[in-house]
């Protein structure tokens, strides 16, 4: 993760350990820790002191709408990070990520209802099951690349979607399956505040694991395979192993995200895991920044917020004189999908390095402000 980023002068590294930190500077690390701690505090506070639930900023965190967005950031963000390991870091492609997300959601619900395994344990197990499915459907990556791999993963998407309907014992077929809420030692994560804390904790763990992976042996091997596979092989890297393994890891992340999604909605149905969601995942990492750990989260936030803003825009339109036009009243879903497509295209053209890159530039700008030129 070492990059040429802006460091204040006087901040010299004197050990290799300092030089291999996830965050380049002590300040950015501190800021992240404070931010996350504040998130926890803001959510926990109104729970403990109910009077605070109406206070200005704290109030937002007691509000179901904001929390549900935060929960979506977390479970989609975990899955998007997995896809970024596969696409951004290893340089492969997958159009079937939503299917692995679905495998995670169904697996966790199934493990819990069938075997009575505690949900908290089912979530990582579901990640494991998704990883196995990912390894199976990722096996073609050993031989094929690019467009052919895209088609193979597209086939995986449709095959798995079809299996969701057929394997009734596992998924409940077309009627879907129920997913219990998470409980830990009798404490139920049964409201949005609690569930947000749970998903946030999972997200932090998964992001830290990925950041660590990328600064150690196998993470470097992924990037080496992406940048120059012929010389990666001469460096002793087994191409087949890493190409397939990155599918496994990507599916593991998707599975964890999917399981958290299922237990949040408490109901899992195959319609949610279509090719559209796969494309949205791709959109998240393109917009956030291919090959960037934090980019996956930034892109997820963008992608989750986009339809919210679209909905806001449409409801404003509905109050204007055109408000009674059918294309506005009925057009919300249509607008939403158009906006997703437009956002992906605009980012590909104007910001191919994604939000993560833009964020770096902004940071550099403020470091030097007002002498930015």
């Amino acid at each position, binding site marked *: 993760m070492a990059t040429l980023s802006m460091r204040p002068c006087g901040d010299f590294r004197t050990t*290799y350990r300092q030089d291999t930190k996830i965050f380049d500077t002590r300040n950015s690390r501190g800021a992240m820790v404070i931010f996350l701690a504040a998130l926890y505090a803001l959510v926990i506070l109104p729970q403990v002191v109910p009077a605070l639930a109406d206070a200005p900023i704290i109030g937002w965190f007691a509000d179901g709408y904001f929390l549900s967005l935060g929960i979506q950031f977390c479970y989609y963000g975990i899955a998007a990070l997995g896809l970024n390991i596969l696409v951004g870091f290893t340089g492969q492609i997958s159009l079937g990520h939503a299917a692995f997300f679905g495998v995670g959601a169904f697996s966790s619900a199934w493990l819990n209802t069938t075997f009575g395994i505690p949900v908290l344990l089912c979530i990582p197990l579901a990640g494991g099951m998704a990883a196995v499915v990912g390894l199976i459907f990722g096996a073609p990556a050993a031989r094929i690349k690019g467009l052919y791999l895209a088609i193979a993963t597209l086939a995986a998407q449709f095959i798995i979607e079809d299996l969701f309907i057929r394997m009734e014992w596992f998924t409940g077929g077309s009627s879907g399956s129920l997913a219990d809420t998470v409980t830990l030692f009798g404490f139920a994560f049964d409201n949005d505040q609690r569930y947000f804390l749970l998903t946030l904790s999972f997200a932090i763990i998964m992001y830290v694991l990925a950041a660590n992976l990328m*600064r150690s*042996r*196998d993470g*470097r*091997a992924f990037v*080496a395979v992406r940048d120059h596979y*012929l010389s990666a*092989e001469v460096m*002793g890297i087994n191409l087949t192993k890493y190409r397939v393994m990155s599918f496994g890891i990507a599916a593991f992340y998707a599975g964890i995200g999917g399981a958290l999604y299922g237990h949040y909605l408490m109901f899992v149905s195959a319609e949610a895991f279509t090719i559209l969601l796969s494309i949205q995942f791709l959109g998240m990492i393109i917009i956030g920044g291919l090959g960037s750990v934090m980019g996956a989260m930034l892109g997820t936030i963008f992608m989750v917020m986009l339809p919210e803003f679209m909905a806001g825009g449409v409801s404003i339109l509905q109050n204007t004189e055109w408000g009674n036009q059918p294309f506005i009243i009925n057009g919300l879903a249509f607008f939403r999908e158009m906006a997703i497509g437009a956002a992906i295209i605009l980012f590909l053209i104007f910001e191919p390095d994604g939000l993560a890159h833009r964020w770096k530039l902004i940071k550099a700008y403020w470091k030097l402000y007002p002498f930015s030129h």
Partner: protein
Amino acid sequence: MSTDSPILDVRDLSLHFGGVRALSNVSFSVKPGELFAIIGPNGAGKTSMMNCISGRYTPTQGQVIFKGQDVTPLPPNKRTEVGMGRTFQNLALFGHMSVLDNIMVGRHHLLKNNFLSGGLYWLGGAQKEELSHRRQVEDIIDFLEISPIRKATAGTLSYGLRKRVELARAVALKPDLILLDEPMAGMNQEEKEDMTRYIVDLNEEWGMTVVMIEHDMGVVMDVSERVMVLDFGQKIAEGLPDEIMSNPYVKKAYLGEDDEEDGGAVNAGPGQEVA
């Protein structure tokens, strides 16, 4: 000459691409600790030979014996594990990685941490292992004098520096045999002198056996212990640098006819002053 058994023994090797005979029945061997040069005009099959040795190409016929083991069926990554390293004629760095990470990739087969222990980093000893290899990589960085650029993105460096980083990455493999494909092509005189010094040091101080393809006859004659000449996929001569220089066939095929003024009709590289 010692009676050491060869570290590399290429036996009757042929490589055909359809009708193109890139190599025809070439045999040669390299002794441990030797600095061995392969010369020949463009298209002679030098890179193809290196690709057969490193496993990129599977020879149509013949064997590659490395340290007494027949490595012909092994894929390139396995050959790295038994002690081969190489650089490429055309730059082959990991362009988006830092110089440091590029070189750390060279430690891949020596590192033990994996996606699990690497992810846990602090818990499974991965951090300790990474840092200890980092220390050794820094020695290589110091040796090749690239410390000021260790954080730079490899793809942004000048040609000469990239060649040097590629050498650093191959050295990081800790190979017993290092294969260098035109390590100084496209360099200016000063860079060439540096590169020559590094190669000699690797051979003498670091104890690596070197097989080098090089066009600069001055360098080849100065540093190599033995030279093999390829032309149209065939071995036309092998011997001490002086013998090679005086071999009439070599003069004709590689260095150009005696009576030609510039002496480099085929090989348009610098360094013809030697010829």
